[in-house]
């Protein structure tokens, strides 16, 4: 056992660091630290730079653009991205639907979708949740009935409502779970469909969250006609794809590298904020202790993740351990926002978004580091809810790991 990086690893890290420093789009420099709302172009501009370099989807099979990196290299890459406050690559295309397509899809599907996901030409959203099917995803009701069209081809006619669909307002395509057999046992009548978001019958309506942002949407599907060849894997076997994808979703969700950068940011912030005694907050014993505790918890998570990565690279896929990473990772992300809110003191309170007089030239009140702390804190409550809530993750560990 050892914790050392080889000289090759260090050379790799330096290469990544230099590439990011030279190529990260200048207009994004101050945005990645989630202090600003990101536009579609913001996300895509960095995606395209990485795609050109061949680094947008390190985990994919090599033939589709994967890097064949060792788990250490992937880890170092993630570290460097976070270290530079680089905007993360959106997961819906690259990390979620693409693995389903290259694992379960037909050759035509791989040829049709993977390159466009890779290049950032097509933006994806995830149509899983419904108003009545959240944690109990398998109870979804959106139905897809098979018909033969006037053109003699086969289609699904899809009707139903999805909700919480992240960034659907920008999406070109969505991957949807739909019920193709209402008679079967609930997990067995589900299919996995790829739907062009411009198909007639699709309506996307914004949901505004408590931080005032527009990130999630309701998606209504009314007689949406989807060619049968847009189904991935067998009819009524979509649950297999769904479960596979969820395990992938969870393994990326711990966000250790970003949280490490987050701790640094809290430290930076505390070094400019004042404590009660006029000295900076970083000299405040109580605040320091909380940051130290968080750092230690994060270290425990980091080494746990490294152990999981090591066993994955020995050939095991992401298993129920990913639930541990999800729970701990999101709790740490939430605590980071609590500390930032505390550090901001009185200046956590001013708010600028969607209020009268909130014009272009309304510059924020108080120190820059404070002005998004409250919205970030409120928004980050989502992390213990989405991607399978933390209660559900604990249920999974109880059942799958502990056998209870």
């Amino acid at each position, binding site marked *: 056992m050892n914790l050392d990086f080889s000289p090759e690893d260090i050379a790799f890290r330096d290469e990544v660091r230099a590439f990011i420093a030279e190529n990260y789009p200048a207009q994004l420099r101050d945005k990645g630290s989630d202090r600003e709302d990101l536009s579609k172009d913001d996300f895509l501009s960095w995606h395209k730079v990485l795609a050109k370099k061949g680094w947008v989807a390190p985990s994919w099979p090599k033939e589709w653009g994967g890097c064949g990196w060792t788990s250490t290299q992937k880890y170092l890459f993630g570290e460097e991205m976070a270290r530079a406050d680089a905007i993360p690559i959106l997961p819906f295309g690259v990390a979620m639907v693409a693995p389903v397509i290259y694992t379960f899809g037909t050759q035509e599907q791989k040829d049709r979708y993977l390159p466009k996901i890779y290049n950032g030409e097509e933006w994806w959203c995830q149509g899983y949740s419904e108003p009545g099917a959240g944690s109990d995803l398998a109870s979804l009701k959106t139905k897809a009935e098979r018909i033969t069209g006037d053109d003699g081809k086969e289609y699904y006619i899809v009707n139903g409502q999805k909700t919480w669909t992240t960034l659907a307002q920008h999406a070109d395509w969505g991957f949807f779970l739909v019920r193709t057999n209402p008679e079967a046992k609930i997990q067995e009548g589900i299919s996995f469909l790829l739907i062009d978001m411009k198909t007639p019958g699709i309506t996307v309506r914004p949901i505004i969250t408590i931080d005032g942002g527009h990130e999630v949407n309701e998606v209504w599907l009314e007689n949406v006609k989807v060619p049968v060849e847009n189904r991935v894997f067998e009819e009524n076997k979509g649950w297999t794809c769904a479960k596979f994808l969820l395990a992938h979703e969870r393994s990326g969700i711990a966000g250790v590298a970003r949280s490490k950068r987050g701790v640094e940011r809290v430290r930076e912030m505390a070094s400019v904020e004042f404590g009660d005694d006029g000295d900076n907050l970083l000299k405040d014993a109580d605040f320091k202790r909380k940051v130290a505790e968080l750092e230690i918890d994060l270290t425990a998570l980091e080494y746990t993740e490294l152990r999981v990565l090591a066993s994955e690279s020995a050939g095991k896929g992401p298993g129920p351990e990913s639930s541990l990473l999800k729970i701990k990772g999101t709790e740490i992300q939430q605590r980071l926002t609590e500390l930032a809110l505390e550090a901001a003191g009185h200046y956590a309170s*001013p708010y600028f978004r969607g209020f009268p007089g909130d014009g272009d030239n309304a510059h924020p009140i108080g120190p820059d580091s404070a002005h998004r702390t409250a919205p970030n804190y409120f928004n980050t409550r989502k992390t213990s809810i989405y991607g399978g809530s933390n209660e559900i993750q604990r249920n999974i560990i109880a059942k799958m790991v502990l056998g209870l």
Partner: protein
Amino acid sequence: MDFNFSEEQSMLRDTVASFLQDKYDFDKRQKLIKSESGWSPAIWEAFANELGILGAPFSEELGGLGGGAIENMIVMEEFGKALVVEPYLGTVVIGGGFLKHSGYAGAAELIGGIIEGKVTIAFGYAEPQARYNWADVKTTAKKEGDAFVLNGHKAVVIGAPWASHLIVTARTSGGQRDEDGISVFIVEKGAKGIVTRDYPTVDGQRASEVYLENVTVPASALIGEEGKGLPLVNKVLDEAAAAACAEAVGAMRKMHEQTLDYARQRKQFGTAIANFQVLQHRMVDMFMNVEQSVSMTYMATLKLDESDAERAKAVSAAKVQIGKACKFVGQNAIQIHGGMGMTEELAVGHYFKRATMIEGLYGSVDHHLRRYETLSFGKAA
């Protein structure tokens, strides 16, 4: 010992509650906070004339209802339940507190104005560098003949955009963090040299950065004794903190109630989520947090007239309990609502935001823990 409310106090609660139910439901409140001015002068006027509650803690000679801190607690708890943004805390509790306790010559007249709804007050005590140290005052007041000239910057003055008057702390002598040398002044907000930058706050209130640029006030603007303002500020802010605890209790009760309702209705896996034991225990813990907060709010409110040290210790203890409870109850209310808890549309998120701001109002949990420790164990060596 008696924890019962008098008949008048129960009536006060019922009057406020039924008025708010009628005139201040969640949708109306949302429209209000998004309006240009962000508050309702008409509601304020009704508080004054229809309900008479702006006189709740003032003596009958002054035209009030003859109550005190308990009446403030009752009003603020109901305000917490309805998420009222109108400035009772700043005007009646804080403004009224300064006027009552200071022996200020103009007090009777100004209190009369408060009771009638004509005088609204915002208190500027914090400064950008001061965090929760009320003695950290850079704003200066220089004596010039019979007048004082004020200069400085007061941070995040809640309710200032709506105020007719500002009360501010300023240094008449001493160094930046000296406990001596702080004086309290009342100024009309329209006074020459007061510049404000107004903005909304995350919990639906309005606040200002207040810049005092050579604001000249007569000696009669001084509240209390020159240079001896800090003990008065501490007393008034303790009263304000106790009232804010009551408001938080109101908000927490609503979050708990809404969470129970939601958990009973929301079905997943073929059953109401209220049937999952892990959520049951969480809701029980929320309940215990609310009840302990009620107890501490009563305790602190009942001790507001004790010695400075007793009062401070009681309020800090309450503020610690309430701060922790706001976090626990708020976070779990959102969590148990799942995705719905994250939406702007549901009231629960707005209670969470207000409760979160109360956590840091008049001092964070850490600040009050430290103050309690100092009062209880003496200053660290």
